[in-house]
């Protein structure tokens, strides 16, 4: 069994601590929270695409399902916010499980288009079911999360809570990356026939992975809803799925650090180029294109190669 890469976790924790202590500016803390949320989603995307070979362009839909479930349940029905997070995850899991069975028989382009179609359907429903979701103008007045009596109402407390969740999440990811589970997924990605003749059922595993990642993304979506207090379908459109794909690809597909690195790099682009906000998507597309064309391992893969060459 491989050793866990503690270095990366400690590095991230230190960065988070540093941010928590040094940064007082609410705006920057907000950016940091959003980057953490993106990082979780991008990692889920990475597990799907980089490990299992499932290209899912419907991740934004699951994110939205989680956000709307939390919003509707907590505001309209007055259910405890924490419980709504799990409810959103459960709904996404079941939905992904049902959709996954037929959809995951497809591969490559076809799978991408099918998941994209699914995402579009959910997006259209979010827009049209205004009696439930508030329609295109969005859902307002979402409350705060209360954990152990602490009301996460300002940026600072939310950032701290999110950081704790994130480090815990990273630890699980590392365990996953160094366990047999990750090998199993890579076997499925590379050769389904080999898996089948060694007693692994690719169909079952793929559906489970797809559903689990949908649940994770939806859980995260709930957090997002309680953070922003306002959600609208625009945040969950196809564009967000494409952004997640970009983050995972730029960070490095098939490397557990990929999602985090990609989310940080691409999440900072709008801040660094704040004077040229207009060109944000152009930079996104350009970076994605360059990485796909010249650095198939993304940032993580390229760095790893460089380190290995020196050693």
């Amino acid at each position, binding site marked *: 069994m491989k050793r866990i890469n503690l270095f990366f976790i400690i590095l991230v924790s230190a960065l988070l601590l540093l941010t928590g202590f040094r940064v007082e500016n609410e705006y920057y803390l907000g950016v940091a929270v959003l980057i953490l949320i993106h990082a979780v989603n991008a990692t889920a995307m990475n597990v799907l695409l980089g490990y299992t070979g499932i290209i899912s362009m419907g991740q934004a839909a699951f994110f939205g399902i989680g956000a709307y479930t939390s919003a509707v349940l907590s505001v309209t029905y007055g259910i405890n916010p924490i419980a709504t997070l799990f409810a959103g995850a459960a709904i996404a899991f079941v939905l992904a499980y049902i959709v996954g069975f*037929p959809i995951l028989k497809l591969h490559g*382009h076809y799978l*991408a*288009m099918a998941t994209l179609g699914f995402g579009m359907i959910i997006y259209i429903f979010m827009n049209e079911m205004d009696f439930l979701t508030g329609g295109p103008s969005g859902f307002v007045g979402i409350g705060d999360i209360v954990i152990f009596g602490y009301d996460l109402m300002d940026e600072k407390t939310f950032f701290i809570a999110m950081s704790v969740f994130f480090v815990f999440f990273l630890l699980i990811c590392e365990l996953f990356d160094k366990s047999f589970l990750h090998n199993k997924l890579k076997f499925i990605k590379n050769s389904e026939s080999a898996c089948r003749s060694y007693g692994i059922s690719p169909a079952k595993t793929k559906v489970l992975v797809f559903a689990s990642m949908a649940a994770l993304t939806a859980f995260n979506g709930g957090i997002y809803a309680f953070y922003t207090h306002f959600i609208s379908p625009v945040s969950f459109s196809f564009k967000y799925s494409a952004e997640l794909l970009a983050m995972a690809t730029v960070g490095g597909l098939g490397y557990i650090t990929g999602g985090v690195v990609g989310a940080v790099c691409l999440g900072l682009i709008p801040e660094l180029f704040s004077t040229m906000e207009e060109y944000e998507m152009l930079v996104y597309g350009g970076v994605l*294109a360059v990485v796909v*064309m010249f650095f198939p391992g993304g940032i993580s893969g390229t760095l790893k190669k460089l380190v290995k060459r020196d050693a």
Partner: protein
Amino acid sequence: MQFLYSGLTSGSIYGLVALGFNIIYNTTGIINFAQGEFVMFGGMLIYTFFTIFHVPFAIALPVTVLGSFIIGALFERIFVNFCKYKTEINLFTITLAASIILRDVAMHAWGRDSVKVDDYIPIANLKMPGGVISSQSVLIIIVSLLVAWGLNLFLKRSKYGKAMRACFDDQTAAETCGISVRNVRIIAFGVASFMAGVAGVLISPITFVTYDDGIMIGLKGFCAAILGGMGNFWAAVAGGLMLGIFESFSASIIPSGYKDAMAFFVILLILFVKPDGLFGKKRAHRV
């Protein structure tokens, strides 16, 4: 009957886009995600020449479709050609990245608002059995079918048509037989973009053009291509028409906001039930 007429109009546009998907897929095995962006560029170009600069239509049209062809060819040269590891996922991602770039370029060039292209022919409503059909719709249907027919001839008669099929079957073998795979790929992308450009020119007087129109029209074109079956020429056209008619009929039953969702239900349904399309032949699977 009225639904049939409006369905045929949008359907023939879908058919043109579907043909573009078909040509690229059957030559390179890529599903070009930026196909819809080509349509949008076609509309934007004709807007620039015809409405802004008042170039006579007889000149503006050829310039636009030629421009579309060049955009497609450049697209292949820049994005697809430089892709180092041509795995399926990489190729998908690269066309996705390219579509983001094209969309953003269009946003900066033409702004975020919808633009309206002047009508090419005087608007008149023709009385037909069971409803009316506008002169624009007639133009769209006739021109699309003509273009599709022309393309069919091009693929059947010219040497490039055969070369394209050869490239899909086995690139190395095609190369050995003296076919320039490079040129064939450029032409495939160019022709696909050309078809999309024609579609863009045709619809823009009716629906207006916005920089982010591409996603929707591209997806619906893909849906039409899947519906008919990839790799089958007339099936793509038929798929487009069927999708258009189906969509406009469903609009009469369900709230109009859900209309766009229908196309995606069709995609999912077809992919689940019969991934090779209604008219597609079943491909053999190798173990």
